[in-house]
Structures are given as structure tokens and as C-alpha cells.
């Protein structure tokens, strides 16, 4: 298992232990080296002081024989004449220093039995000549002390490390406890809940705030979607109910050709509404998901516009409503940020609204033009217009001038919402204006 797959707590603890072990090791090595230096210096000082009394004696009383050393003191003194005046050194050491010329020096020596000695030499000049003095001190006590220290340091270091590991485990646990708590809260969240933000002003509070913002967006989208589905289902029921009734009536009128044809025509109108509603819903849901990044040339938009005029005229046949149009586009190569079929739906919706608003004998005049590169679509009718207070909310979904007359105008309340949404998606605007008589809708799409 790799380090990255361990829990955060384990990773913090392991990391802390590694760092602490490294620091401890360095500290122990330094301490041990210092102690070893001190002990070695102490051995040298002792050996020197062993010789010091002989130096004084020889200097002060050159004619008297040299004093005997105290017990346990390892000394070797050779007169300028070559006579060994004092000798308490073991044989191995005498072999080393016996014939050595007198110098001021010190060195370590290990004998056959593995005992280590620190040997200090002195040359002492007198009127009679140069004396050679040697003393030796066993370093075994220093080594014993160092070994003792090593033991203490290793045991102490391990104890410290264990303590450190436990402490960092506990600290990491304590530090991560709020995270665990937040996870448990998140597990139990209801779809509409938010995470409680801790009162602290730390990273965790920031995380909770960020997550809540995200949750809020998701929840809002979900609410919109639910609303949309429920509105759509509601809207579909009306033309479906009408269609059902019309077909039942058609059955009843099977013997009466004229009545049957009338019922069928009404049924066709209902189906037309259903189809238009389905198209608008699809277009809106696509806009909602922002998956459209279509670009269309002015030429394709002109074709859609005139195609829409043809469709509107077909719908207008029975109603004696005239649909006139004009196209004033000089730059057919200009590009606009809208899908051409979506533009067709946009104009279809405007024509459908106008047709629904007009009494027989009414007129619709539409124009597609370019103003400073921007594409301007206007659809004007000479109908009754819209109540002024409705103009403000006309672009909202599922709104109608009079909520109680839902079926009389045949509109689904989605058409203008789609017009507005498509215009915005293209970076443009849609505007409504009562021209008394009539209504004019202007859609402006900026050139890319």
C-alpha cells in the first residue's frame, strides 16, 4: 500500500515520526561526540597531572633521586644518562615508549588484551640534559561511561519517539475530528439542506461555505427543473384534453361529414399546439444546458425567417390574416451567435403569438434588417396589444395576459420566454412595445 493511500491521520503521524527521528538522531550524535571529547580531554589532563609532580621534583631537586609514584599511577621516567628512574608501566607500553626519544606528545595505544591507554609524553630539559617522562591512563572508565550514555540515549530516544508518535496521532485525530463530523452531517443531509458552517474562521468553515454555495446552485437547478417539468406536464394536459374531446366528438359526428371535418380541424389545431409546445420545451431545455454554441450566417437566418413566414401564412389561411414581410440585409455573410433552426422557432413563436392575438382581417408585418451589423427582427401586428402591466412579465415562463383565459389565446406561455432566452443566449435583446393599435416585438442580435 502506498503512502498516498493511507488515511490523513496516519500520514500526519508517519511524517511527524520521520522528522522527529531525524532530528533526534542528529541531536544524539552531537551529544555523544561532545561527551566523548570531554571524556578524552579529562583523561589527557589526568595523565599530564601525573607527570607534573615528577617534572617539579626533577627541576627543584636535580641531585636527589626521583620520588616513587603513588599507587596505581602508571609512569616511566628516564634520566638524560639513560637510566630508568621510575617505571610502573605495563610491559606492552614500555615496549612502545622505552626507546622513544623524549617529545611532548600524546597518543592512544591498545595492548594485546584489548585495553586502551592514553599515553602522554614530556621532554624536560635540565642542566644535566633531557629527561624523558611518560605516563599512561587507562581509558576504560571513559569508554564505560560512553557506553552507558549510549544506552541512555537510545532508550530515551525511542521513548521520545513513541511519545511523539502518540502525541501526533492524538493531535491529528483532534484536528480532523471536525472534518469527520462534517462528513457525517453531509451523509445525513436532506436534499434541501445545507451543511452547518462551523463558527470558527478556519479552512473548514471556508470549505463548508464553498460546498454550500455549490449545493445551493444544484438545488436551485433542481427546483427549476421540477417546476419546469410540472409546468410542462400541466401545459400538455390542456391540448391533450382538448384533443381527446375533439376526437370523441369526431366519433359522434361520423355520419355528418361537415361536422366531422370541423372536429378534425380543431384536433389538428390541438396537435399543432402540442407540437409547438414540445419544440419550445426542447429548445428551452437545450438553452438551459448551454450546450448550443451554434453560429449562423445571415443568409441562413433569412431562409429561416422566410420559411417561418410561409408557415405563418399556412396557419393564417382560414383566418384571413395577411402576413407581409420585408428583408433588408446587405451583408449576408455576417455571423450571429444563434442556431438557424432556433431562430426559426423564435420567429415561429412571434408569428404564432400575433396570429393568436389577431381577429379576422388583421395584418402582421415582419421585417428582418441590419442596423450597424446587428440583425434586427421586428414582428408587428394591428391587434389589441398587451395589457401594460403584463409587458413587464411577458418574457417569464408560463405567464399569460390573463391567467383565467388560458385556452382562449392558445398560447402556452412559453413562446415569449423562449424568444427572450434565445435572444439573450445570442448576446442580444428582445423587447415588447404596445403601438396602439397592436404590438411590436423587436429582437436584436449583435454581429459576432
Amino acid at each position, binding site marked *: 500500500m502506498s503512502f498516498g493511500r493511507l488515511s490523513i491521520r496516519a500520514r500526519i503521524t508517519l511524517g511527524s515520526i520521520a522528522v522527529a527521528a531525524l532530528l533526534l538522531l542528529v541531536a544524539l550524535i552531537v551529544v555523544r561526540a561532545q561527551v566523548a571529547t570531554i571524556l578524552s580531554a579529562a583523561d589527557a589532563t589526568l595523565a599530564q597531572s601525573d607527570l607534573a609532580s615528577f617534572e617539579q621534583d626533577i627541576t627543584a631537586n636535580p641531585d636527589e633521586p626521583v620520588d616513587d609514584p603513588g599507587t596505581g599511577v602508571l609512569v616511566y621516567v628516564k634520566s638524560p644518562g639513560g637510566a630508568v628512574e621510575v617505571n610502573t608501566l605495563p610491559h606492552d607500553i614500555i615496549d612502545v615508549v622505552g626507546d622513544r626519544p623524549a617529545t611532548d606528545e600524546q597518543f592512544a595505544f591498545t595492548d594485546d588484551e584489548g585495553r586502551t591507554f592514553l599515553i602522554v609524553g614530556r621532554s624536560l630539559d635540565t642542566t644535566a640534559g633531557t629527561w624523558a617522562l611518560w605516563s599512561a591512563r587507562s581509558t576504560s572508565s571513559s569508554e564505560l561511561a560512553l557506553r552507558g550514555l549510549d544506552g541512555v540515549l537510545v532508550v530515551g530516544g525511542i521513548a521520545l519517539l513513541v511519545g511523539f508518535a502518540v502525541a501526533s496521532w492524538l493531535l491529528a485525530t483532534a484536528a480532523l475530528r471536525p472534518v469527520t463530523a462534517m462528513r457525517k452531517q453531509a451523509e445525513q443531509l436532506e436534499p434541501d439542506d445545507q451543511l452547518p458552517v462551523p463558527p470558527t474562521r478556519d479552512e473548514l468553515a471556508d470549505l463548508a461555505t464553498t460546498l454550500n454555495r455549490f449545493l445551493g446552485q444544484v438545488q436551485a437547478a433542481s427546483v427549476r427543473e421540477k417546476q419546469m417539468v410540472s409546468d410542462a406536464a400541466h401545459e400538455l394536459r390542456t391540448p391533450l384534453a382538448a384533443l381527446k374531446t375533439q376526437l370523441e366528438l369526431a366519433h359522434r359526428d361520423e355520419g355528418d361529414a361537415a361536422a366531422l371535418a370541423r372536429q378534425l380541424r380543431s384536433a389538428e389545431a390541438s*396537435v399543432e399546439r402540442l*407540437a409547438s409546445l414540445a*419544440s419550445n420545451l*426542447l*429548445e428551452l431545455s437545450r438553452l438551459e444546458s448551454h450546450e*448550443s454554441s*451554434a453560429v449562423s450566417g445571415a*443568409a441562413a437566418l*433569412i*431562409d429561416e425567417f*422566410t*420559411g417561418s*413566414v*410561409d408557415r405563418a*401564412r*399556412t396557419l393564417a*389561411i*382560414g383566418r384571413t390574416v395577411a402576413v*407581409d*414581410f*420585408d*428583408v*433588408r440585409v446587405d451583408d449576408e455573410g455576417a455571423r450571429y451567435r444563434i*442556431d*438557424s*433552426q*432556433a431562430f426559426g*422557432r423564435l420567429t415561429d413563436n412571434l408569428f404564432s403569438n400575433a396570429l393568436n392575438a389577431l381577429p379576422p382581417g388583421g395584418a402582421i408585418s415582419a421585417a428582418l434588417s441590419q442596423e450597424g451589423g446587428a440583425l434586427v427582427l421586428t414582428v408587428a401586428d394591428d391587434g389589441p396589444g398587451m395589457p401594460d402591466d403584463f409587458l413587464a412579465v411577458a418574457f417569464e415562463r408560463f405567464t399569460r395576459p390573463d391567467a383565467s383565459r388560458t385556452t382562449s389565446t392558445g398560447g402556452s406561455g412559453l413562446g415569449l420566454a423562449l424568444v427572450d432566452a434565445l435572444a439573450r443566449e445570442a448576446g442580444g435583446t428582445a423587447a415588447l412595445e404596445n403601438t396602439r393599435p397592436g404590438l411590436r416585438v423587436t429582437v436584436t442580435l449583435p454581429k459576432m
Partner: protein
Amino acid sequence: MPNPNVVVVIEDDVDIRSLLTAILEPAGFVVHTAVDGSSGVDTVRRTDPAVTTLDVSMPGLDGFETARRIRQFSDTRILMVSARVDATEERLAREAGADDYLTKPFAFAEFSARIRALVRRDSAGAKSTLRIGGIVLDAASVRATANGTTLPLSSKEFALLWTLGARAGEPLSRTEILQEVWGTSQFIDPQVVDQYVSYLRRKLEPLDTGVSIVTVRGVGYRIEVAP
């Protein structure tokens, strides 16, 4: 040369299949149907149709792949039919070799008109501009000019002017006009012809093109070009 009266309908939905047959047979076409892409490819190979209609979403071979396979051996005009309103899908369809693209739901008349347009494109082919007096019609871009300036026409107005202008001086009945411009005379109110003639007249009157549309009592309409 494919059989100009043969249409192959490749469609997995039984209702739509019988509906399309019901539209096409009275219009004088011999209709062969196929229920999926691979049998559709075989049918096209066997019958060599002028036009093939193809549903985009079918089990097995989808419409795109079917179109690609048909394109490997046939020049039949392909009309793709889809339930989705989607510019990307239309582009994919055309890349796969479709000549036209129609979204469900569609009107009978619209479907019939598209089929006729595809058959016409096959037979007429070469003729891409038509001059009537001061008016020039360009079939490729569906744009018209009158005395050199742009004359904005809807596609139906354009087709009506082309139909009358191609046989200038000759009277055409409403039924003939409906068949040519709207693709059918069955599912559409003949008044639409009168309505479009009046729209065209209103556009032509202020222009000095020498073109006028004359009502032929008891028959229909004809175009007169002033000498």
C-alpha cells in the same frame, strides 16, 4: 438513372411507416418500405429509388450509418427524418450523405413537398437560374433580383414565381400549382394559392419588371411578360 417514381421508406416505427406510404402512394409514387437500416440498404440496392427517406434513430444500424452505406453504391436522394431539433445532427446527416433533413412532427404537405423537390432536383438538375422579364431567380441560393436589386421572397413565393415563370404565358391550374409548390393538392386549402398570388402581386406591382400575374377565370393563373 434511378427510377423517378420509386421511393424507399426506411423507418422502424410501424405507424410512421404506414403514414408515409399513405402520403406517397396517392401522389403517384411506388413505395418500398424497410424496417431497419440493413434491410433498407438491400431494398435501395434492389429497387434503385429516386428518393430514400431514412429515420435517424433506429435499432441496429442508425440513420447516419445507413446513409453512408447507401452512398457507397447509390445516388438516390436521401431525406433524413428525425425527432430531434438539432443543428449538429443535421450537419452529421449531411456529412453522412443526406440531401435534406426534416424534423418530426411535420405536416404531410411539408413532407410531400420535400420529396417532390428532391425528385425535381434529380430531373431538372442543370437549370439553376430563370429570367422572367426584369426578374432573375437563382435556384441554388433561392434568391431573386428585380432589375438588379434584391427582391426578398419567401421560399414558397420563390417556388410559385419559378413555376409560373418557367411556363410563362401558359395558364396553370391551382391543382398544378399546389402539386408543384406545396408538393400536394390533398392536404391543403387551395385558397393558399390565391393568397400567395396576391402577396406576389403586391411585391411586383411597385417594381417596373414587366412581369404581371394574370387570373385566368375558371382555370388558374398565368404570368405575362411585357415585351
